[in-house]
């Protein structure tokens, strides 16, 4: 559910944040809400939050923007639906309330985001290495990348740059990543892009249907914009008997339970782009407070914690045997200012805090 989760003290001195989440109907985004509530409940963080649900709907989101401005909180955090950012930007600009935009840029707000491109590239390097060791190359390999057109260009950078990076490693046809668009379906002879809508069933159906286009006996490399999409695709490959340990390599994205468990236990799952999504709420709140208190964030983007894990590094960040985050990467110069707000102090295990 939603509702306000308040600090112990009188709400008069509490720092009020209105927070609009992308949607409450998908696990990936819901943890942002639940985990931040959890952080706040750990003690007097001095934060008081009011939650809104954009429900993935542009119109809903602009309505929420109006309502948040109307709340007159100390700061606003918004996880935008791709299509609404410009219009919402105006509403927020008119509101003159410090605001932070997560994952998708909103002109009127300071931008807090992961580096999708880096994720794609780093994942490609790990998988590329593993594949090369196995002697996979243009003659025997098909790269399967899953996009989500509706979530906008930035998000799909990860798959774009994943291909442009892995292509030279395996000697596949090289293309300019910017030429890979939502309507792209095949890239050269060795890559296929499918529309997975970031969800299970569409990914399953899409991959089931394009199976015949994957030359029989070819090895498969699978990478998509999130682990739901990857899981759906994986089910389809397994169902068709093309999920063998020696013919499939997977790069995950999300660092959720699915990804971490698989990275530990599944020989095919050799890399996981860990973006600590569950903590985005905390980082966003920290940034909102810092900004409201006068901190100067970088002009373009404040980086969120992220790291691409392989089987050796996974236990550094996740307690062995559990998917729970045991450590977060240290703050870097570009986001050091986040510690001033004191919010991250409630997030145990940020290296160096």
């Amino acid at each position, binding site marked *: 559910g939603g509702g306000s989760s308040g600090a112990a003290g009188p709400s008069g001195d509490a720092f009020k944040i209105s927070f609009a989440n992308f949607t*409450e109907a998908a696990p990936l985004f819901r943890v942002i809400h639940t985990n931040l509530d959890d952080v706040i409940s750990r003690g007097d963080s001095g934060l008081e939050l009011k939650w809104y649900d954009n429900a993935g709907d542009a119109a809903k989101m602009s309505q929420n923007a109006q309502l948040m401005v109307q709340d007159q909180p100390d700061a606003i955090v918004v996880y935008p639906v*791709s299509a609404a950012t410009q219009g919402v930007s105006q509403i927020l600009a008119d509101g003159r309330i410090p605001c932070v935009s997560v994952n998708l840029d909103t002109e009127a707000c300071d931008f807090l985001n992961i580096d999708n491109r880096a994720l794609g590239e780093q994942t490609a390097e790990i998988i590329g290495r593993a594949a090369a060791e196995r002697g996979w190359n243009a003659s025997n390999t098909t790269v399967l990348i899953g996009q989500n057109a509706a979530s906008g260009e930035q998000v799909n950078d990860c798959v774009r740059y994943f291909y442009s990076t892995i292509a030279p490693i395996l000697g596949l046809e090289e293309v300019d990543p910017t030429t890979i668009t939502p309507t792209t379906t095949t890239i050269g002879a060795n890559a296929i892009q499918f529309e997975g809508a970031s969800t299970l069933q569409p990914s399953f159906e899409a991959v089931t249907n394009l199976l015949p286009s994957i030359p029989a006996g070819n090895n498969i490399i699978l990478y998509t914009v999130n682990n739901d999409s990857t899981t759906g695709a994986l089910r389809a490959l397994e169902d068709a008997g093309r999920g063998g340990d020696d013919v499939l390599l997977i790069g995950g994205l999300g660092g959720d339970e699915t990804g971490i468990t698989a990275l530990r236990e599944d020989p095919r799952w050799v890399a996981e782009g860990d973006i600590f999504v569950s903590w985005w709420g905390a980082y966003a709140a920290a940034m909102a407070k810092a900004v409201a208190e006068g901190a100067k964030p970088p002009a373009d983007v404040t980086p969120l914690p992220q790291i691409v894990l392989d089987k050796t590094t996974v236990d550094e960040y996740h307690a062995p045997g559990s998917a729970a985050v045991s450590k977060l990467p240290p703050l870097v110069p570009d986001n050091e200012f986040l510690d001033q707000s004191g919010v991250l102090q409630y997030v145990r295990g940020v290296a160096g805090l």
Partner: protein
Amino acid sequence: MKTTTGAPVGDPAVGAPGAGPSPRRRLGLSEGALQTLLLFGFLVLVAAYFTSRDPDFLTSRNAVNILVNASVIGIVSLGQLFALVSGGFDLSVGGIVPLGGVGFALLVNADYGVLPAVVLVLAAGGVWGVVNGLLIAKARINPLIATLGTLSVTGGLALTLADGVQVPFVDVADGVLTRRQLFDVNNHVWIFLGLAVVVFLVLRYTSYGRQLYAVGGNKQAARLAGIRVDGVTVIVYVVSGALAALAGAVLASQLLTGSGTAGTNSGLQSITAVILGGAALSGGVGGVPGTVIGVLILGALANGMAILSVPSFYQTMATGAVLLVAVGISQFRSSRRAAS
């Protein structure tokens, strides 16, 4: 001879309708007027409830917020009203709204200027309306399926035009349709209210409006009275399509972005609003005042539930429930009418 006088055999309801004047007759109110009044009372109740839970609800500022969001679906609903009065449906608006939005964005970005863009978008919507109208009036395809078909065609077209991603306005000035000007109220709110007045006059005072109600009430009788039923029907869907496209342009201006996914659920939303406003599925009844109130009720529900941070899937359920209740009532009314 012995009779069991007064004691009706079997279903007494059959005899009932004729007997005694109904309450509203004593009030000297037309059935529609009473309906609208009740609905307005319901709206007041809703407002009162939300205000009691959060005083922020009842501020002029929030009133404008409700209007700002309600106006988009309101414009669609005015067209949907035509369809329902004619005894049909228009689900294709769920595809025409995004299509209008994307089209509008592409046009203003191509420097056509806002007004010409609006005109072109209206025309495009109208053309899809002609398609619907012909499918329904000439090919005799059930309105539901006909408009479901065009829904997926137009929806897919919108995504294709937008090349799958949204089309941001190059020049923010092109968002004028939704800018706050007159009395610090957004232009599109005035557009909605203006259209509401126009539609009200059309339905009430023009011969087309008259013919529309006749066609919706009894196609065959209308035909025998010399009315061109097919022509009337085609116009219905042209209006609905054009207004949906306009709503798309407004939505795009609001978001300063044309999106292939914005407004895809306006079909169900508008039908809900109009039915809620007292239109009967059997056709021939319904009007602008009821529709406007219906739109406002749904707008107030969404706004209030958001203010109270009700998760959106409860909101979906609430809307579904409201729909069933509303239609249950409207069904009851029309069955009473049929009986008499």
